[in-house]
């Protein structure tokens, strides 16, 4: 298996050589990266560094989903976009960056926001999903769609000087509804709205998100000699000491309405009873996802 593989070009051997030297990766790990497809939902402050390191590492196929355009007010943290690409949809700006960093990676753009209507079609062709968005409704939507589609979800968030990172719906681990069965009330969400955010805080969490995704891929392809998966939550506060906390979290919950044995969520319910579904996601505004 570690022999010459004609599907690898000379550029790939030279490009990935220094990471293939690591026993934890090797040629089999590099092939796993190439054979895996990953979709990044959100090409903002988390998505930018995540895309950068997933692309550099040699993921075979990367999807980018975002309905926004590049804006000057984002450039303090959305560091693969640029001043000259202001006004361009973020997905195309990100693709331009990624393809010049590593032309071996296939990039597919989805210039749209995710919704109950499109999410299943978007994630269908990818093995792993990254939640790089910033609101509660989307977090429930992505988690539910990943549960129903059987995909692991690497989820991150960052506000002000803090960040959080969890892997959902992987092996014995929880889904987002296992962790947060009830949506946060709208009043509490308001309390941190427009709270500001510092670039390197989101940045460091986005790179960690890429790292956890790559570790998860190595695990998927290499079962046996890796440590068992332990559901973990990583907490970060860049201005405190110590900055990092790693916490053991619950596994999959039998009571979960999304992933438990008597779960009542289905794709059909989500799409046909959209209002009821939205209220399960904390939407009190009548807004559509």
């Amino acid at each position: 298996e570690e022999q010459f593989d004609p599907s690898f070009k000379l550029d790939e051997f030279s490009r990935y050589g220094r990471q293939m030297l690591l026993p934890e990766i090797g040629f089999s790990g590099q092939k796993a990266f190439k054979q895996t497809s990953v979709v990044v939902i959100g090409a903002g402050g988390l998505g930018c560094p995540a895309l950068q390191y997933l692309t550099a590492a040699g993921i075979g196929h990367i999807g980018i989903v975002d309905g926004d355009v590049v804006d000057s007010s984002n450039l303090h943290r959305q560091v693969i976009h640029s001043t000259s690409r202001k006004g361009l949809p973020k997905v195309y700006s990100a693709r331009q960056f990624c393809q010049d960093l590593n032309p071996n990676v296939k990039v597919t753009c989805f210039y749209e926001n995710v919704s109950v209507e499109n999410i299943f079609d978007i994630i269908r062709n990818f093995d792993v999903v990254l939640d790089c968005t910033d609101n509660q409704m989307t977090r429930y939507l992505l988690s539910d769609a990943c549960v129903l589609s059987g995909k692991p979800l690497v989820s991150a968030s960052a506000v002000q000087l803090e960040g959080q990172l969890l892997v959902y719906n992987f092996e014995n681990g929880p889904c987002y509804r296992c962790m947060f069965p009830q949506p946060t009330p709208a009043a509490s969400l308001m309390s941190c709205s427009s709270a500001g955010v510092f670039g390197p805080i989101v940045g460091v969490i986005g790179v960690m998100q890429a790292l956890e995704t790559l570790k998860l891929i190595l695990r998927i392809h290499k079962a046996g000699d890796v440590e068992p998966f332990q559901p973990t939550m990583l907490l970060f506060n860049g201005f405190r000491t110590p900055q990092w906390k790693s916490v053991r979290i619950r596994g999959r919950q039998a009571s979960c309405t999304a992933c438990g044995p008597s779960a009542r969520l289905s794709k059909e319910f989500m799409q046909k009873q959209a209002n009821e579904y939205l209220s399960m996601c904390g939407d009190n505004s009548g807004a559509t996802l």
Partner: protein
Amino acid sequence: MSIRVELCGGLDLLFNKQKELTVQLTDIGQNATVGDLIQYMTNKIEDESKCELFVMDGSVRPGIIILVNDQDWELLDKEDYVLETKDNVVFVSTLHDH
């Protein structure tokens, strides 16, 4: 006979921006549980109108999880966990932008 309480994910704003405090077990009550600590912390919130950002229906509001000694309280007895001296209890709110 004290525990350390940390507030993450913006919850420090409810407690005069204190991110960390030391609480004497005797101040919470005998055989104090995490449930008692939630009550004790709620009483510390000066602006009563903000209590609903912390508690709801007798426990922490949705979106807050509690960590005891670097473990999700769901792995322990949740509200019924009996606090011990030197325990480290973290209240974390999930982070959302809007």
